[in-house]
């Protein structure tokens, strides 16, 4: 069964169901949104009923957050309409959304940490609620009672736990009269008991007639909590699962969702590699690695990893499971709080970027614009950024502009970089060409270990293929390549082995020839590999 037929049938069934029941509390109808050449949303129709918890699932970039931003008034759609109780409404700003009863709880909370719970609840409140003295206070107490909230209104938000802050966010939305509650990855920052508490809260809201939309990539939680699940894939509704399936056998439901999320990706056969002998030299050996994220919590929690010379090792996983922290630690940009990182036997953990580079690490960062390049600097200058003054060809003091230009011309030709010339500021280049410059910069030094984070993010298909081919060729030359990507197709195309990163640990490591997209997809969302998929790698 192809995804297209699935979708048509399901859509008809879904819309029949909506017509039969009372009109949806809120409906997104035929929503479209483009960002440049990327269709973030394409003719998406989703209806949410009163007293329903709807799960919105999908890979990174499937359009979940865009859809939520459209409903929350953060993004204006290019096409389609939003209806509330069957009536079309215009949601131009977050304030409009609030007035219409749509409350949003973002992944990164929008509370002022130095203010109290009550003061936060008062912020931005308008209308009669603001004019009546003590009204917000009374509403907050009432909402708090309903939700069984354990947070006193006088508590300063900065002193609260993440779970408590989230309850304050929810309470604040309800104080303002939200009938629809949108939650973006609400469990990502919570501990397991806090997740249970959140679920209880959401069930309570459902019983009181609030419509809840839960955006998540955690399959297990969605299946436990939601009355209905809609799966987005590449900006379209791939299908939905209703209560009948969700209440049935959980492995069946899980398989269906994974099918809808990852299925039919059309990846060709395994890469034409003979495989790397298991006793090949380990170019990278990581043991017991613990790395803190920017928030201070451990993002990598005890990770072991070995990458052999001549192999492409792929790290799959949903973004935010520790990818950036892992790459940064290996490249020397982040000091781990525990564990060892050895490159060709040289220990480099916590010794800085210089030590990592000397030991042989090349690093193509996932943040091309933010840290990989200097927008105002020329292509030639960006190519020379890491080697300048290192004493290689030029002087340590004088800038060898002529040599920089010569090497830039060579790189532009070799990697088919579309730039008017070496002197063009890199900020004028497209994302794909910036990526080629970054890749050229690393490959010029022929690093024994190349780490590449998000190699094809935002690239057109042809450039993506060029980049992947270059990475594969680097490994085939006897060097080790570590590719970290949330695009599963990248890894399936070039990796010899794939490790799945979940919550800062490798949930599994499998040989590429043994798996397909579905198997990896299940692992990424916290499922398990069924017996035939798994073989020691």
């Amino acid at each position: 069964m192809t995804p297209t037929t699935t979708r048509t049938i399901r859509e008809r069934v879904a819309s029949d169901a909506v017509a039969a029941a009372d009109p949806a509390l809120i409906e997104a109808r035929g929503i479209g949104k483009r960002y440049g050449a990327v269709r973030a949303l394409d003719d998406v129709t989703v209806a949410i009923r009163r007293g329903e918890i709807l799960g919105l699932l999908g890979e990174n970039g499937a359009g979940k957050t865009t859809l939520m931003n459209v409903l929350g008034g953060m993004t204006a759609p290019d096409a389609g309409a939003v209806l509330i109780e069957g009536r079309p409404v215009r949601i131009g700003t977050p304030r409009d959304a609030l007035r219409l009863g749509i409350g949003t709880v973002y992944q990164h909370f929008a509370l002022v940490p130095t203010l109290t719970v009550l003061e936060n609840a008062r912020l931005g409140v308008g209308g009669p609620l603001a004019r009546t003295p003590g009204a917000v206070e009374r509403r907050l107490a009432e909402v708090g009672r309903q939700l069984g909230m354990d947070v006193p209104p006088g508590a300063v938000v900065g002193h609260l736990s993440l779970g408590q802050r989230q309850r304050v966010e929810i309470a604040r939305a309800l104080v303002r009269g939200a009938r629809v509650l949108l939650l973006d990855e609400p469990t990502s920052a919570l501990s397991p008991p806090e997740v249970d508490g959140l679920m209880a809260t959401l069930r309570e809201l459902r019983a009181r007639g609030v419509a809840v939309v839960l955006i998540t990539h955690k399959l297990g939680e969605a299946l436990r909590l939601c009355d209905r699940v809609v799966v987005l894939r590449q900006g379209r509704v791939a299908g939905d699962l209703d209560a009948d399936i969700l209440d049935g056998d959980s492995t069946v439901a899980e398989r269906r969702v994974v099918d809808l999320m990852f299925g039919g990706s059309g990846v060709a056969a395994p890469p034409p590699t003979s495989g790397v002998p298991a006793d090949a030299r380990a170019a990278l050996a990581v043991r017991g690695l613990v790395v803190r994220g920017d928030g201070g919590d451990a993002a990598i929690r005890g990770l072991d990893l070995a990458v052999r010379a001549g192999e492409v090792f792929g790290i799959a996983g949903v973004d935010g499971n520790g990818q950036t922290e892992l790459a940064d630690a290996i490249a020397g940009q982040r000091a781990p709080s525990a564990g060892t990182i050895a490159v060709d036997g040289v220990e480099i953990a916590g010794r800085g970027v210089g030590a990592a580079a000397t030991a042989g690490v090349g690093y193509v960062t996932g943040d091309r614009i933010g840290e990989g390049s200097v927008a105002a600097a020329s292509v030639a200058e960006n190519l020379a950024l890491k080697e300048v003054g290192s004493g290689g060809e030029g002087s340590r003091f004088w800038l060898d502009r002529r040599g920089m230009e010569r090497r830039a011309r060579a790189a532009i030709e070799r990697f088919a970089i579309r730039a008017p010339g070496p002197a063009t500021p890199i900020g004028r280049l497209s994302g794909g060409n910036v990526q080629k410059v970054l890749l050229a910069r690393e490959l010029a030094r022929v690093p024994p270990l190349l780490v590449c984070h998000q190699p094809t993010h935002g690239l057109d298909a042809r450039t993506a293929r060029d980049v992947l081919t270059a990475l594969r060729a680097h490994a085939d030359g006897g060097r080790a390549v570590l590719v970290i990507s949330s695009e599963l197709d990248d890894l399936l195309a070039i990796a010899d082995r794939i490790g799945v990163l979940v919550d800062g640990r490798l949930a599994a490591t499998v040989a590429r020839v043994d798996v397909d997209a579905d198997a990896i997809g299940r692992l990424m969302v916290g499922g398990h590999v069924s017996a035939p998929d798994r073989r020691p790698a």
Partner: protein
Amino acid sequence: MSGAAARLAPVLSSLAAIAGALLVGGLFLEARGKDAVGGYRLMVERGLGSSFGLTEIAIKAAPLLLVGAGLLIALKAGVWNIGVDGQFLIGALAAGVVAPGLSGTLPNAAVLLLAALGGAVGGLAWATIPALLRVRFGLNEIITTLVMTSVAINLSAWLVKGPLKDPDVVPPQTRLLAKAERVPDIPGTEVHAGLIAGLVAVAGVAVLFGATVPGFRLWVLGQNPRAARHAGMDVGRLTAGALLASGALAGLAGANDVLGVRGLFQANWNPGYGLAGFALVYLARLRPLVVIPVAFFFSFLLLGGDLMSRARDVPTQFVEVLEGLMLVFFAVAVALERGRWPHRRRSAAVEGSPGPLPAQASGEAA
């Protein structure tokens, strides 16, 4: 396309900022019942039309060039040295103590060089505390350098009223250098050699950023500190280096005024070159070679302010009003310019428009 227009835009914004400041400054004067047109005419006639005026402009340009060279290094590296005035005063005091202290023991040229060095070291020392606080603890240098200026004003005044005072005179000041002991004039002129030091300093900054590895690294740091870190540059050392170099040049400017013009350091003397330096360096779009003519223009304004205050009873602070207005108009002009040429937005920093504020704690080592 509008390539030529886009190239001209920065020049036009700077000129518009100057014109706007002169216009609004003139309106202030008129509102206070002064003759603005007559005042400006006086500035031009006496400032540019007499050899006295031209000589004075050249003399007053020297400290502006030195301060400007230092600010170029800091601001291009994205380090906000707001404490130029404090570094200037400590440098001036150091020179005012070293020169009379050594006079007679060594040839005069050596005394002057050591006193100038003392001035540079004084300014550098005053920048050291903010540099350490920034690199070790990620404290914002905008605050620390500003606070250090207040300390410098009071500390230098106290020192010159007490331990470092010339005991032979009543006013709180260091011992006056005789005319013959000061920096000699450039042959054939009545302009002392400090001007050459200023020109060399700015030219040196031009070479630093145009042709050397440290200059390139400082510029990358100013453009994108995360990229500097990613490329393995020692961000802490670069930040500290920019702040210290900037402080040393400000201190040298202080030595210039003491050794070349005034001959002594007096309590509560503060010419406030920091504000002038910021205005001139931004009007020059952080381009070293453009700083030179702009410094002479600011020197002309300073002289003009003096002349107006004497002849027309205009407050001496009028020039500071003009400098402040220029910064305000410049900020507005840059905002307008970016709106009009949106394709330049990402590369606008090339032209030396004010960069983003330094990221908090981005300077700490891993």
